[in-house]
């Protein structure tokens, strides 16, 4: 079991990496009026058949060979359901997969979101060949980080050079803090 939702996102997004996606879009959206938090991970990877979609929510299914359980999606689904939400997967072979998890925003059993910016930085650093779009939205306001825009500006400078990674961290942190102001920056609830 993960301690924060952002770790589930990191884990589930790794499935998109392994599905050979070239673009992964991660959206975290809070709607305070509806008391709802939604996390969407959408990729353009190889996708799954309806039968495979059924099996990924089974903890005893995995494509890996190093151990017998696949807990990424089941953990995420459990976290959603504990807070009164749910997890759905839409997928099409050859087109990609979308994982949508919803949560009761103020539900006492909802895990904290945690360090989403740390998750995004890690995904970009470890998978610089993939494009990442991260959207953080609260009540209609949003901030977006799109590595395609970063690449356009950077030209020949690699996305995973240390200077760029540090810029990315600051970019996420400052723009998230601004979006969430006047709430405190950094660790989120």
């Amino acid at each position, binding site marked *: 079991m993960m301690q924060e939702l952002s*770790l589930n996102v990191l884990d589930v997004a*790794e499935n998109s990496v392994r599905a050979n996606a070239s673009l992964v879009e991660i959206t975290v959206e809070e709607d305070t009026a509806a008391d709802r938090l939604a996390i969407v991970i959408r990729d353009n990877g190889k996708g799954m058949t309806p039968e495979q979609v059924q099996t990924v929510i089974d903890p005893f299914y995995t494509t890996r060979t*190093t151990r017998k359980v696949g807990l*990424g999606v089941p953990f995420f689904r459990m976290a959603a359901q504990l807070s009164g939400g749910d997890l759905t997967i839409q997928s099409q072979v050859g087109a990609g997969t979308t994982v949508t998890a919803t949560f009761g925003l103020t539900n006492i059993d909802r895990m904290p979101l945690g360090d989403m910016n740390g998750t995004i*930085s890690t995904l970009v*650093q470890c998978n610089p060949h993939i494009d990442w779009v991260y959207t953080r939205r609260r009540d209609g306001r949003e901030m977006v980080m799109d590595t395609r*825009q970063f690449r356009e*500006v950077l030209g020949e400078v690699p996305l995973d050079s240390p200077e760029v*990674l540090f810029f990315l961290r600051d970019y996420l942190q*400052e723009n998230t803090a601004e979006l969430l102001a006047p709430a405190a920056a950094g660790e989120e609830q």
Partner: protein
Amino acid sequence: MKSLAELQALREQMKGRVGIRHDGDSNIRVVVGMATCGIAAGARPVLAAFTDEVAKRGLTHVSVGQTGCIGICQYEPVVEVFEPGKEKTTYVKVTPEMVPAIVSQHIVNGAPVAEYTIGASGAQS
């Protein structure tokens, strides 16, 4: 607030320095296990700590990346260090606090930190 204009400025600064990163056979590769088991055990801050430490020391011949589950989930976070011409070193139950010692003693000075390795943990790998 950070803007893409600042990224443009960073690019201008970095122009000409691109290529300084060695991509030769002498590269040392540090990989952190980032499957469900690693992530749940705390791999994300460990990877960030390696990135910070390597950048702080300006080690351009060291790359920091991820790997999947290597099957020793109970010892996560697991970090493997690959040096050309040497045997792989496997560190287990790594915390961010252990990272500066691994970088300075092992990656810079070539002497693995034995007490943090899988051999010292009594594990069968």
